[in-house]
């Protein structure tokens, strides 16, 4: 497919350019518009005054004539939004640190220490990723209650690694595989202990892998919904996605401006975080799939 345009002879230059326009750029533009429109709509609603928001007859809904910060002000100062952001941030960072620690060690053991049956342990961890959270949340809720962690963010920090560890381990196994084994053998001959090898040779070389595992964990925990909905009851302990849906939707009249402002602000940290590391992200996503 990719060679179709380059193979065209020169006499068909104009024709192939028009053709390329129709079969390539036009569909691509449609995809982009459809994929990005909800974000545009989210952003434009967040800054629109209520008067324009509900009056399509006199105002073009695609544009704002007098942008306002009233929805954002309402969100930040009249609701517990900053608190929700802090909770979500804390939970995501906590869960990310636990999962990175556990999955680095596990991936190192499976890929580098190589013991009898190590590939079965790897397979078991991979299968754990296929167990969806909507099957687990009811029994987990009873476990969380028994542990006395109901309504506590610590419950989320402990539970999130169940879907983060399989993914990170899988990703890091692939990463460790790409580091030459000879480096470790040299270190072993020089008398380094295995822990020294892990700390001083393997880990520094695996930093890009660790970064992408960290991004994955952070975004996945930030986006998690069903556990946070089931385990957290009190308003101040909720995470952003749950709080926007359960605390901002009040009564029959939806505050669309505030809802969209909340969604926009809740998406921004992940989007910014992701934009810094987008190359790691794409390469590890595609790398993980290729494994």
């Amino acid at each position, binding site marked *: 497919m990719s060679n179709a345009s380059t193979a065209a002879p020169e006499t068909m230059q104009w024709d192939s350019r028009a053709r390329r326009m129709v079969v390539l750029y036009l569909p691509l533009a449609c995809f982009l518009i459809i994929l990005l429109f909800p974000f545009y709509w989210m952003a434009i609603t967040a800054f629109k005054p209520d008067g324009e928001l509900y009056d399509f007859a006199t105002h073009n809904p695609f544009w704002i004539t007098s942008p306002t910060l009233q929805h954002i002000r309402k969100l930040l100062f009249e609701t517990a939004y900053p608190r929700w952001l802090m909770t979500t941030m804390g939970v995501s960072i906590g869960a990310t640190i636990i999962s990175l620690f556990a999955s680095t060690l596990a991936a190192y053991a499976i890929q580098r220490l190589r013991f009898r049956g190590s*590939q079965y342990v790897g397979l078991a961890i991979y299968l754990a990723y296929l167990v969806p959270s909507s099957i687990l949340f009811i029994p987990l809720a009873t476990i969380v209650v028994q542990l006395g962690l109901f309504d506590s963010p610590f419950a989320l920090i402990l539970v999130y690694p169940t879907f983060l560890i399989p993914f990170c381990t899988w990703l890091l196994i692939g990463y460790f595989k790409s580091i030459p084994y000879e480096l470790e053998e040299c270190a072993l001959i020089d008398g380094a202990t295995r822990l020294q090898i892990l700390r001083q040779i393997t880990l520094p070389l695996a930093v890009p892998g660790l970064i992408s595992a960290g991004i994955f964990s952070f975004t996945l925990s930030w986006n998690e919904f069903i556990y946070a909905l089931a385990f957290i009851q009190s308003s101040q302990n909720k995470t952003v996605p749950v709080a926007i849906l359960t605390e901002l939707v009040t009564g029959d009249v939806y505050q669309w401006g505030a809802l969209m402002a909340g969604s926009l602000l809740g998406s921004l940290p992940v989007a910014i975080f992701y934009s810094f590391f987008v190359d790691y992200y794409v390469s590890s996503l595609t790398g993980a799939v290729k494994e």
Partner: protein
Amino acid sequence: MDATLTTPHWSKNRPEPGLLVRVFDNKAFLIFACLLPALGLLTVFLTYPLGLGIYLAFTDTTIGRRGVFVGLENFTFLFTDPIFWGAVFFSVFYTAVATIGKFGLGLWLALLLNQHLPFKSILRAIILLPWIVPTVLSAIAFWWIYDPQFSIISYVFKELGWRTTNIDFIGSEWPARFSLIAANIWRGIPFVAISLLAGLQTISPSLYEAALLDGATPWQRFRFITFPMLLPILAIVMTFSIIFTFTDFQLVYAITRGGPVNSTHLLATLAFQRGIPGGELGEGAAIAVSMIPFLVFATLFSYFALARRKWQQGEGND
């Protein structure tokens, strides 16, 4: 003789390491210690709950009361419940239509992105956005787009003169189902496209050159080179996609909460509604457990049907 005399010096230069260091350098112990955090967490918060969930499905546990074993009572009740069968139907329908849509459009987008394009890396980054952003938050945006009164789609259709009334997106049964499926496809396209793009880039250009020399048409090149080479990766991505679409919860919970009149309940949202706000943990667990056979079947089907070719080639890949 000299050599034997110098050995004591050697051993002096390398003092015996401490007990802790030696324990941690013992391979068996180190393997155990390295696997303990990951396997421990997964056992306590994944394997055990999975077993507990299956057990709960056979009890009449409610919130605040330890249940007793009631055998198949939950299941016999569910099998006479039309809402449960409605949820089964919609889960299967939702998964089937959304998967076809996601993979059709995702493959198309991947083929487009595989061509020579300016700003390719920026394009890829932008396209992944719907997948990065928290699903619930984009679902709320869709809820607003589907608003019965102020829907932007209704506005555009009315401006263009295609319709005179607002479209009732989520107020009645079938439009609500298709609106949810559209939102799911929107969210799923980026992941499918970027994964398949990775697969496309591993296909060697020499295959296409050979096919061009043999006079293959673009369709033949797709049918006999691109598609077969893409099958292994397609199998994996599709298995994932089917599992996570079938057990989807967030989109439906955020946009319709199973309404109107329970017509858009997925098994996951029905399990939540009965189990957590309804308090019937046993019944909720039974609904959740009833997803497992579908998942096993879907996984086996997509994996065996699509990945067969890879085994035939005899690639030793884990």
